[in-house]
């Protein structure tokens, strides 16, 4: 996913002279072609995220479209005020490509676990937040990003994630994609958790339970119409993010705000720093962000409904 998103920046920058790549000490092999062919559209800065974000805002004020890439935690927490004021407030067309969204950097510990990025950025007016599920969807979404008004945050998964998205229906920013029709239940998901959701829905299907899957590649603006339209008697959300301020909370706000109260549960990361590390997969299992737990949660809520 990371490679696809950066390759897309290169591809778009070679076509559009307003597009510029800014890295923060990413390594000598980053986007070599762009660096050689269009040196003006390639900047590799030092380890200075706050400076980079404000600098990009300055360039955007002058008509450039900067795409910044670095590790997600440093691109969100480290420069939050710069994001709020210089990007959000001024609606500057700066794009933040965040490597290692969620638990990807598990072996590197708490400084590198980007489990709160969506919550942080949802608070910024004018921000668009994207969390594609795989490289193919990344490609489709990246092509739309130059035209978005205001700043865009793009959350990257680990890379090499299985491709589960489909070319149809066409990707539209702000529009969720229904991958499975709901009946008894609806699973709402984002990012690479779509894989988990589809696996759980397939398992449930075998047990005669029809669980729909709604994939929100855009977390802000979140597609309230689709959520309300497809909400079933049971709604379960799943995300690789803390439960505070993430997809689950946002879906609950939409449902309750519209006077809907389905049986509801959220699956995600609890409000505590990680105490185990290992790999992304081991932490997903530790937090029960798994198809087994998702299927069991749907089943449990359905049984409650029937009581």
């Amino acid at each position, binding site marked *: 996913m990371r490679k696809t998103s950066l390759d897309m920046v290169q591809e778009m920058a070679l076509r559009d002279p307003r597009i510029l790549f800014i*890295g923060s*000490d*990413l*390594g*000598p092999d*980053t986007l070599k072609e762009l660096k050689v062919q269009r040196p003006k559209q390639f900047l*590799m*800065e*030092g*380890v*200075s995220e*706050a*400076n980079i974000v404000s600098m990009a805002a300055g360039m955007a004020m002058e008509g450039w479209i900067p795409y910044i890439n670095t590790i997600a*935690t*440093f691109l969100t*927490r*480290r420069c939050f005020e710069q994001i709020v004021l210089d990007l959000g407030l001024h609606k500057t067309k700066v794009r933040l490509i965040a490597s290692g969204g969620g638990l990807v950097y598990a*072996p*590197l*510990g*708490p*400084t*590198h676990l980007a489990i709160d990025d969506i919550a942080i950025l949802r608070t910024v007016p004018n921000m668009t937040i994207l969390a594609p599920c795989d490289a193919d969807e990344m490609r489709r979404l990246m092509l739309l990003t130059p035209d978005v008004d205001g700043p865009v945050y793009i959350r990257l998964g680990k890379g090499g994630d299985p491709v589960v998205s489909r070319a149809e229906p066409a990707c539209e920013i702000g529009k969720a994609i229904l991958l499975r029709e709901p009946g008894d239940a609806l699973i709402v998901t984002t990012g690479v958790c779509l894989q988990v959701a589809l696996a759980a829905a397939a398992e449930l299907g075998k047990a005669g339970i029809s669980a729909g899957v709604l994939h929100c590649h855009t977390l802000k603006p979140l597609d309230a119409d689709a959520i309300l339209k497809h909400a079933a008697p049971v709604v379960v959300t799943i995300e690789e993010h803390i439960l505070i301020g993430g997809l689950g909370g946002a879906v609950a706000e939409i449902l309750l705000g519209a006077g809907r109260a389905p049986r509801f549960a959220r699956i995600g990361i609890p409000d505590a720093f990680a105490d*185990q*590390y*290992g*790999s992304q997969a*081991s932490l997903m299992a530790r937090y029960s962000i798994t198809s087994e737990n998702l299927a069991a949660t749907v089943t449990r809520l359905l049984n409650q409904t029937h009581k």
Partner: protein
Amino acid sequence: MTDHELQLKSFALRRAMLNLIVGAGAGHTGGGLSCMDILNVLYNRILNVSPQTFGDPHRDRYVQSKGHCVEALYAVLADRGFFPASDLATVCHYQSHYVGHPTRHIPGVEMNTGALGHGLPICIGMALAAKMDAASYRVFTLLGDGELAEGSNWEAGLAAAHYRLDNLAAILDHNTLQISGHTRDVMSNEPLDEKWRAFGWEVRSINGHDYAELTEALTAPSESGKPVFIIANTVKGKGVSFMENVAKWHHGVPSDAELKQALAELDASEAALKEAK
């Protein structure tokens, strides 16, 4: 321990670090090798810390701001007996507390680090607290030269001089490389000595692999009221010929064959040093 004994120890530490990186399947090899001699001198000669006295409020404080080089710190702490050397085989494994940056789960670690640009400001706080509490401990941090691009370091630079923190020493692992290549090409920061002097620090430029120079720079009292900035000129990848001064070894993990060659080189250098005695 004599300089010679410490130097001999440095080979065992480097081997332990390389082995644990291979076991972890991840790690910061180049920067670990460049700061190993600094850590060796700090923990075996300078800091009044030990596994037994780590809870003592009078202990010296060491915060490793370039937290990514935790593997070097693990090797040194294990050697000093803070935890069993066998723990090093669990680094980055699930259900192990040994992760790719320092955390306070680990005996001997003063602060969690890993987001660059935090160590020096934290040390300002610790050194200021020592002044306010009339405590005699000293405070040390280790910075990377790429890390210096973070603005927080320069804010801290002002504060340390302002508060006259002569109980503070910032050691710069000046290996001149960062992930993307030479620091001078990525974001030039020289002349560092003049900059830190202008900020009100006492600056000492030394060879960061020379045990006598390291010891002198880390012990000599500073001019009254001035924090000390030690520019330790080092070689990234020091001690393993094919890793020295090569940017890709920043977080390169040796293959089995590379590990074998690296260990053989360290063995040979150690034997030559023993011979030289």
